């Protein structure tokens, strides 16, 4: 037997059978300027390297050069789907550091805002996921239609649809009047109808089931080891929700469940979000029923020249994508000495390769979609 020639003969044989393609940064399904270096064996993903940094804005460094309040509008730009939650996390950290007490009405308003942004984030996340599956825009547009109502509400309250810049240390910027409350109640009342319709369109759809089930399984152990949080972790069976763990704001007084999945595949991540939306609706109903009267801003907080005693603090909230935390160090001056963010999108992205390898390239796309990243938060 002749041994296979060590050098490739001049007959023009190939050197490798693996196909290396670069999905992104300009790709319709990478949710922004994100890039995946994928090594394919036919259609099967053999290796995947996420490449980030195309949207890096030097956010943390900028914040260290800026007044405490000045960073607030920048937090809007982290996860631009959830500016309210981002505001809250930052406000929470600063309040912790400065020891500010927030009035109760403000706490209720914060819950309303956070849960509404969770609703619209999850709605568009599953819309995007199904768009990635190839459902020609219909689910996404249904989701956006619903999201639009919530954004209208945000605009009415805070003045901007996405970059709300609504929270202030020790409260919120604008009080809700009765009209606004009525608007919120209407949104909350209508939202389950949308969910029902959406589920009818997609949840039992055989194609969705076939595409999503048993795809991109994230084992519970890996989820914990990878510090994964949010719906991605809960879909894998990790019972971890900061609203329950920290009971920040008035979450301690509210009745709601946190759905937890078992398998941890794309379908679970999809359906956990649907269930979370239903729980959010419950929370909103309680909050809108019980919201007390009173001031919305702790009086002692100055806008200009606001200084915080030296020390460090970590404030975190359960954002729609997971645990969003701000770690702040103060030297007692008008600006933070150290300002660090724990972004859920970025950390959830670390297990992408583990989930994708061995699946088809089409699966890699929906797995990425099921993590629900926002590049503003990944790159900062």
């Amino acid at each position, binding site marked *: 037997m*002749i041994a296979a*020639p060590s050098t490739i*003969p001049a*007959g023009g*044989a190939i050197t490798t059978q693996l196909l290396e393609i670069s999905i992104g940064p300009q790709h319709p399904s990478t949710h922004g300027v994100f890039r995946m270096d994928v090594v394919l064996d036919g259609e099967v993903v053999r290796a995947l390297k996420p490449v980030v940094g195309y949207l890096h804005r030097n956010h943390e460094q900028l914040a260290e050069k800026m007044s405490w309040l000045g960073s607030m509008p920048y937090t809007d730009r982290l996860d631009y789907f959830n500016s309210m939650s981002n505001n809250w996390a930052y406000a929470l950290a600063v309040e912790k550091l400065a020891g500010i007490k927030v009035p109760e009405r403000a706490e209720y308003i914060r819950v309303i805002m956070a849960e509404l942004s969770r609703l619209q984030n999850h709605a568009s996340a599953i819309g995007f996921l199904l768009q990635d599956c190839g459902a020609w825009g219909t689910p996404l547009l249904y989701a956006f239609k619903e999201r639009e109502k919530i954004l209208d509400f945000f605009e009415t309250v805070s003045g901007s649809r996405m970059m709300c810049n609504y929270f202030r240390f020790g409260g919120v910027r604008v009080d809700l009047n009765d009209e606004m409350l009525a608007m919120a109640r209407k949104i909350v009342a209508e939202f389950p109808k949308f969910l029902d319709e959406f589920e009818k369109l997609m949840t039992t759809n055989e194609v969705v089931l076939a595409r999503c089930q048993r795809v991109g399984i994230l084992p519970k152990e890996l989820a914990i080891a990878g510090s994964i949080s949010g719906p991605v972790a809960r879909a894998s069976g990790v019972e971890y929700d900061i609203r329950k763990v920290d009971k920040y704001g008035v979450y301690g007084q509210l009745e709601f469940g946190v759905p937890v999945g078992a398998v941890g595949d794309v379908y679970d991540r999809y359906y956990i979000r649907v269930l979370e939306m239903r729980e959010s609706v419950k929370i909103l109903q309680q909050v809108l029923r019980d919201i007390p009267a009173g001031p919305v801003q702790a009086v002692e907080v100055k806008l200009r020249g606001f200084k915080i005693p030296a020390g460090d603090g970590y404030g975190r909230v359960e954002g729609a994508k997971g645990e969003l935390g701000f770690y702040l160090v103060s030297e007692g001056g008008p600006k933070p000495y150290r300002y660090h963010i724990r972004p859920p999108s970025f950390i959830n992205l670390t297990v992408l390769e583990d989930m994708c390898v061995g699946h088809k390239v089409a699966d890699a796309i929906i797995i990425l979609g099921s993590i629900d990243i926002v590049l503003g938060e990944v790159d900062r």
Partner: protein
Amino acid sequence: MNIPLGHYLILAAILFAIGLAGALTRKNAIIVLMGIEVMFNSAILNLVAFWHYKHFAVPTAQLFAIFAIAIAAAESAVGLALVIAVYRHYKSVDVDEMKELKG
């Protein structure tokens, strides 16, 4: 149509020769197979031409042509599978590399 049968036969002969030339001159096993396909087709063309000129009324020749096409398809499937297997072994599809039967 007043093309005599000879034209078809000569056409088939030319195609056969082209196929043979391809099978003889090229190094690449896949092209050798393609040459053989060409030869196959020219043979079937002969069959059909004879049918048209001599036994137009009965469909038997067409039957045989269909059988021949089916067998040719099977042949090409197996042939290409062999090429792929050989490729795995030699990392080449150059027929000059495959000389294990060398005397």
